[in-house]
């Protein structure tokens, strides 16, 4: 009898533990970037960015398809994918990092530094990115923005177009996470 009770107790404990997974997912995250120059402004948006967040160790992983960025002009899309990013060789951009001093139980918005590695065009770079984390109804939202220096990622822009593309690109992101169920 006692054994059965222990077994039942253990089972409920395991079941409970399982349902409260520490993993969260966003499969429709938003990443957009802007390039401002006197010649022209270029803007692109990707609404299908994938991100996983593990609140037990504050780890965050982000992955996106470069071809899923939508531009205002077809020519911008073509240049971006074929000449600059070379999407056939490097179809994805990734970020892997850790949120420093993240407190998952905090109800009010918290601004934290995310330390990690950003990989674009096959080049990886260590970055510290400031992000705001909001918790609502057992789900999380992470948003923020940062600057990327084009030269850092070995992206070659022909001299004739150099005045059309900014040296630093502003990147904005927004992820709405929900609990991850396998």
């Amino acid at each position: 009898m006692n054994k059965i009770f222990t077994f039942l107790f253990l089972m409920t404990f395991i079941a409970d533990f399982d349902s409260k997974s520490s993993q969260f997912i966003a499969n429709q995250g938003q990443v957009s970037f802007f390039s401002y120059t006197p010649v022209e402004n270029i803007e692109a948006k990707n609404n299908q960015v994938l991100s996983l967040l593990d609140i037990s160790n504050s780890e965050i992983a982000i992955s996106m398809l470069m071809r899923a960025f939508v531009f205002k002009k077809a020519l911008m899309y073509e240049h971006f994918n074929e000449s600059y990013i070379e999407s056939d060789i490097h179809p994805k951009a990734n970020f892997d990092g850790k949120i420093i001093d993240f407190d998952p139980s905090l109800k009010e918005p918290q601004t934290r530094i995310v330390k990690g590695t950003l990989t674009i065009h096959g080049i990886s770079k260590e970055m510290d990115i400031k992000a705001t984390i909001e918790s609502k109804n057992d789900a999380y939202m992470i948003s923020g923005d940062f600057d990327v220096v084009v030269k850092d990622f070995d992206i070659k822009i022909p001299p004739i177009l150099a005045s059309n593309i900014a040296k630093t690109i502003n990147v904005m992101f927004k992820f709405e996470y929900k609990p991850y169920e396998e």
Partner: protein
Amino acid sequence: MNKKRNIVLLVFSAVLIAFCIYINSKLTAENYIDIENTSTELNITSNKLVASFTNNEEQADKMFSGKIVEITGRVKEVTFLNNRNTVILYGQNSTSGIICDFDTNQLEEIKSLSKNQKVTIKGVCKGFLKDVVILNCLLMKTNLNE
């Protein structure tokens, strides 16, 4: 003589302006892929498409990415996050599916979709993360009875 040259110049500049306007309208169109009038390159079921990517992503990428595909599958979810109209289709397992991003013109049709409904969606395949991503989608067929 001078008059003739002026006319030639006028015609030439008119043609040039018209050409510029034409090129500009071609390039600035919001949806630069006219999905409705571009023929489908591949027909596939949602299960098979997801399976191709989960089995061998590199090979599937070569086969499908950048192509106009017509996918038949069942609706898992309809979302309107970030002002986008998105239909998510089931894959053969529960972890991976197909994210179909629609332009705004078919809002009413998308709203009326229900879970598990069988649909055929045409769009441009962009690749695979955890789900297959399809952009510029168009709802081709809905089947309420199945």
